[in-house]
């Protein structure tokens, strides 16, 4: 095992003969990191202890240094951070969560590492990134451990984040839970992020989730048309033991806010009771239409408006659309998923992305249309009443990165009742 330390801008040394750390106060914007490697779980634990020891020693040396007069610093808050009276300055571990990431493909591993790197500054946590390799190769474990502490520019608070990247192969790669479980921080919530198509119902996933409080997936990455995964997700969610968060669902938040916002208008709110039909345009650049996102959105509408599925989605004659019906016991509502080709400015849009949602409502001859449409960089929501526009709003689309969604999952912990009800309805709608 070897370990190294050093600030970003400075040299690195070897933990077995560490260079004397310099004495320095907390300077805003500075970042320090310490690294180590290991080939077994006990070695990882030992490396972590050693890295924290190095970090604490450096902090202690900084804190016991003679306190310079406050005028030394341009910002008086910097000076204020220095302990007075010779008290020992402690580098506190302030983890609020343990994040376990599984990335089975090199490209997802790269994305996951980027996201974890971004999160380190926002969420003091321990991140354990598991990258299982060839299951038929020799059993192996190669771990890179790093500890990074940084001082935020404005608040001057210091946050420290640990990252453990474990690349496993052979038999070892088939028992990821055995690697992750000993490394979890006691008594902190554990979030498992499966960064690829999640093998819902598999032994591997089940073993890992037994040690976790929350599972984070991306329904946008479900394989094929997503029906099988949606059904498995509905079963998992109905079990109630595990809180599940879905990046695909979170990407629908702006769609939901804009469509829901239209019905804040006191004129339109009561008209929700007169819903006639729902149409969702779903991006289909190739031959497969991925249903998961549209199904979740439709499931949300059904759950919120107290509908249940009367007729699951099925092919519509003379078109590529899929059509089904909801009922509330008194009337039926037509639901249509219409595949549409990718627009020229589709960019990084994933298969199955929503392009447009349109609701038709109204009693008798009155016709109200509420729609949300994807534009180049924003969503536009409008509602018209017999052709006259009564509400209009827009919302800027967020960048495609995963990090903000992972951050949201870490911040909003626990069961998302609305999501769970939506998934149940979604699975019923696409049950084929």
């Amino acid at each position: 095992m070897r370990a190294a330390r050093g600030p970003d801008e400075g040299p690195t040394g070897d933990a077995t003969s560490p260079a004397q750390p310099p004495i320095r106060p907390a300077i805003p914007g500075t970042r320090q990191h310490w690294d180590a490697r290991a080939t077994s779980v006990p070695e990882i634990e030992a490396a972590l202890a050693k890295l924290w020891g190095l970090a604490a020693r450096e902090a202690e040396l900084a804190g016991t240094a003679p306190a310079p007069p406050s005028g030394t610093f341009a910002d008086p808050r910097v000076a204020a951070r220095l302990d007075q009276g010779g008290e020992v300055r402690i580098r506190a571990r302030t983890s609020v969560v343990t994040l376990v990431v599984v990335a089975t493909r090199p490209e997802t591993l790269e994305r996951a590492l980027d996201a974890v790197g971004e999160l380190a500054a926002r969420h003091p946590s321990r991140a354990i990134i598991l990258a299982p390799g060839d299951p038929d190769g020799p059993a192996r474990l190669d771990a890179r451990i790093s500890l990074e502490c940084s001082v935020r520019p404005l608040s001057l608070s210091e946050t420290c984040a640990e990252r453990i990247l474990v690349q496993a192969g052979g038999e070892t790669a088939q028992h990821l839970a055995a690697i992750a479980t000993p490394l979890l921080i006691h008594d902190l919530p554990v979030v498992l992020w499966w960064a690829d198509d999640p093998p819902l119902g598999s032994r591997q996933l089940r073993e890992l989730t037994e040690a976790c409080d929350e599972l984070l997936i991306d329904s946008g990455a479900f394989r094929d048309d997503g029906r099988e995964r949606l059904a498995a997700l509905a079963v998992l969610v109905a079990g109630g033991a595990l809180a599940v968060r879905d990046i695909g669902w979170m990407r629908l938040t702006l769609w939901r806010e804009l469509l829901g916002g239209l019905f804040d208008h006191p004129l339109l709110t009561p008209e929700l009771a007169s819903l006639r039909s729902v149409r969702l345009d779903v991006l289909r650049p190739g031959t497969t239409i991925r249903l998961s996102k549209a199904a979740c959105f439709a499931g949300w509408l059904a759950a919120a408006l107290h509908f249940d599925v009367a007729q699951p989605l099925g092919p519509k004659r003379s078109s590529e659309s899929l059509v089904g019906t909801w009922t509330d016991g008194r009337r039926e509502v037509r639901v249509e998923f219409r595949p549409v080709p990718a627009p020229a400015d589709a960019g990084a849009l994933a298969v199955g992305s929503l392009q447009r949602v349109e609701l038709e409502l109204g009693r008798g001859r009155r016709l109200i249309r509420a729609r949300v449409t994807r534009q180049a960089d924003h969503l536009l929501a409008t509602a018209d009443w017999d052709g006259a526009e009564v509400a209009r709003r827009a919302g800027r689309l967020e960048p495609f990165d995963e990090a903000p969604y992972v951050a949201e999952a870490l911040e909003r912990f626990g069961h998302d009742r609305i999501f769970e009800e939506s998934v149940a309805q979604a699975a019923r709608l696409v049950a084929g």
Partner: protein
Amino acid sequence: MRSRRHSRERRSDVARRAAAPPRAPAARPQINPLRAGLRLEKVPEPACVVVFGATGDLTHRKILPALYNLRRVGLLPAETTILGFARRPLTDEQFRADLKEAVARFSRVPLQDALWADFAAGIFYQQGEFHDPDAYRRLSQRLDELSVARGTRDNRLFYLATPPSLGPTIIDQLGRASLDVEGRGHGWARIVIEKPFGQDLESARQLNRDVQRVFRESQVYRIDHYLGKETVRNLLVFRFGNGIFEPIWNRRYVDHVQITVAESLGVEGRGAFYEEAGATRDILQNHMLQLLSLVAMEPPIAFAADDLRNEKLRVLRAIDCDWTAERLARDVVRGQYGPGWVGGKPVPGYREEPEVAPDSTTETFVALKVEINNWRWADVPFYLRTGKRLAKTATEISVQFKQPPLALFRGLQAEPEPNLLALRIQPDEGILLRFVAKVPGLGLDVRSVNMDFTYGSSFVSDAPEAYETLLLDVLLGDASLFTRADEVEAAWAVVTPINEVWEAWDRGAHRPEFPNYAAGTWGPEEADHLIERDGRRWRRL
């Protein structure tokens, strides 16, 4: 009392003529089921925010950046409209350009041009004199037009960002123009009033009478931005969201409480204002007594505006206000800074500041011992201190607990210190618990250690500005974090007798020997004596 209230049918004629589609029903709004689970399950209705004093500093530095940021994060409906009202002749376009510069400069996040263009489309300007009834008739007409054009549903929020002396005039004129009227085809009408809420008890009562002659108390939002700070709001969560503190939050376990609001800044060009105010009116009457009431209040029966304010009021009313000259001399210390060094730089004394009288007796520091006469806090002193040009900027509440009943570990090298719980408001917002631990080794040495929780190290997401929190609350109609008229008067009832005695002393032979502390120190020595006399000491910050 409210004779003008029901005389306002003409105003909404324009609004009523709004063509198809039909106007929204005036009945109780239905719940939108699609809101469940979204970021805000209840969103503000569209409204027109009328800012009086629209060309002033507060509008530029705080109000507009706060509204822009609320819009940026999608917490304000797109129809939200801002109508600036001031004396200077400006066009809508000039006003927008002026505000764009201000938001770019003072917003906590960079200005986005596309979003600004959308936001600015809802900004308008109305020139007028504050005392001119015609100006308010034009304002009323403009509001009707904007309500139709922008879909603000006749909801009006009046924000008084003007010098305090103009408040009664504006409120009176709003009443004369029937702009306070709610219901019966109109939307809601609310008014935000900035502190100071009076100069003493009598002027506060007069201001409340002036306000309530036109607006109902439920329409009035007295803003003290301190209450919008994230950590102040968290005080309530800390006290009433945790089960372990409330049982020991009383005279049986608490030895005393200290509240410090220290500033390293001076009067920063506000010499004329500060000459009239002093530390007592500027900080003690509002910020400090609000903090005290949040620390000392009983648990409210619900987290609702009036339940919270009722409990705060009970604390203020329980404070012993019998400030005799003897008690004042013993339990209250005032001070004024002289020249000194702050942050490594020399700074002038208060009397050398611009717009300050060379023989001023205005206090820039006050420390006092307060007693709360109720079952929970009887005999538990609350020591308060606030001042300008102190050694550092820090706001903290510390609750010091009593020593254990039996001192098992006395006679050791270091005397164990009593437990202490410190709630840091700024900087380094957080909570610190001091307890005693054994020093590792063969002996039995003990020492105090700190368990220190800092928000910045656990929640790294950006907290909203106080004005963002408070403006959103006003638009939502939630008055929890705003001061009620009776609270204001109860706070003045604590402070006014102190000022009256001091003023009497200043006129007689008891003029204070100011300055009595150097800038960059922790205030006059007498402040230390005040607490040391009771066998205690100020916490070192």
